[in-house]
């Protein structure tokens, strides 16, 4: 069975690499865009109690929406293809990143912040030298969660013509061709696991030494 899959892969290299490329492009772009929106927004909102609560609640609702439903809802409005899929995936990534950013920023030790302001740090210095470094582990955990969710969602993008490794899986299921199916499923599983592992390693690296659990 695996041998068949491998043969299939070898005989369809361009399709595979294109699908892989699209999948990675979709995922990476969605993550980047979502991060660029949510991290600054989260930082801006974190200090305001009521607003933080509202945003986190909204994000929690957003988090419960099934990914495929989000992709499907985008389709009648934006059509099929790469761009609509990217839009939907970015939406899916927004809740985890924004909640982690807010929670991370609000979780920064209040005494450290008081001492910093009392010593005469400007708001900007406070943010860059104290709050962000201390919030980074939590924010990064959010990015990690979002990354895995996006890769998983990108598989479903195949359903709205977004391309990616999901194409192999859907085609394989439709035609009951197991080798084709595996050519999609195995690489994407490896991609997801690999990304999770990579982000995990990065997270450890990015945790300032002083904050690591001894």
């Amino acid at each position, binding site marked *: 069975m695996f041998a068949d899959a491998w043969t299939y892969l070898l005989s369809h290299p361009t399709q595979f690499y294109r699908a892989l490329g699209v999948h990675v492009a979709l995922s990476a772009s969605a993550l980047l865009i979502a991060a660029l929106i949510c991290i600054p927004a989260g930082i801006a909102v974190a200090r305001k109690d009521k607003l933080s609560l509202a945003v986190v609640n909204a994000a929690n609702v957003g988090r419960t929406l099934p990914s495929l*439903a989000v992709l*499907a*809802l985008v*389709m009648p409005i934006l059509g099929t293809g790469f761009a609509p899929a990217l839009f939907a995936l970015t939406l899916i990534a927004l809740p985890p990143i924004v909640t982690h950013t807010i929670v991370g920023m609000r979780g920064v030790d209040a005494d450290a912040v008081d001492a910093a302001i009392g010593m005469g740090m400007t708001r900007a210095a406070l943010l860059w030298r104290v709050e962000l470094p201390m919030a980074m582990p939590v924010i990064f955990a959010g990015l990690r969660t979002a990354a895995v969710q996006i890769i998983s969602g990108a598989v479903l993008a195949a359903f709205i013509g977004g391309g990616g490794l999901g194409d192999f899986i859907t085609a394989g*299921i439709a035609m009951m061709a*197991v080798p084709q*199916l595996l050519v*999609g499923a195995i690489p994407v599983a490896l991609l997801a696991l690999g990304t999770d592992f990579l982000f995990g390693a990065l997270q450890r690296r990015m945790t300032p030494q002083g904050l690591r659990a001894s």
Partner: protein
Amino acid sequence: MNWLLRNWPDVLVSLWEHIAISLTALAIAFAISLVIGIVAARREKLYGTVMTISGLLYTIPTLAFLAFLIPLVGLGRANAIITMVAFSLMILIRSVATGIREVPADIIDAARGMGMNPAQIMRRIELPLALPLIVAGLRVSAVTVISVTVVAAYVNAGGLGTLIFNGIASDHPAKIWTGALSVCLLSVSVDMGLALLERRLKNRRAA
């Protein structure tokens, strides 16, 4: 809108299928997780191993997992349920184990001092006190399971996903809207309902 009004029995059937599959999967996952969670709660190494394995299962993309199972169990509900159980294990086991661990040591000490044996302590002290966290885990799992069930429609498992897939295939926006929005509504209401339960349980147990 009109389509919905004309076809609401079908929608209801799909909804019912969806709930049935989700509930079955959740029940099985919960039963397994409860056992594993209780056993692993205070055994560090076992807990670590269990978390790693279930974490792996959780990270694999849904559709890929369903696809993997096709050569083994074919299409249909069984496939979907196995996938959902695998997905939910990590969260549920973690909730059960963490919930048990967080029961304050002095309460357990008092219980033991009163002459309760381990089984009684688990049943009458640890599990009840761990309930809020367990329900929190159930909440996340329930939402996850509902989400997976949508995709599982593609492997003939039934449920609201069928509406979505049919709608996409036949370019029928009304079906897509109905399917997508109903499952979103289902997801959000289940989440909120369990959130309420979680909060009520937490208040009762506040020290």
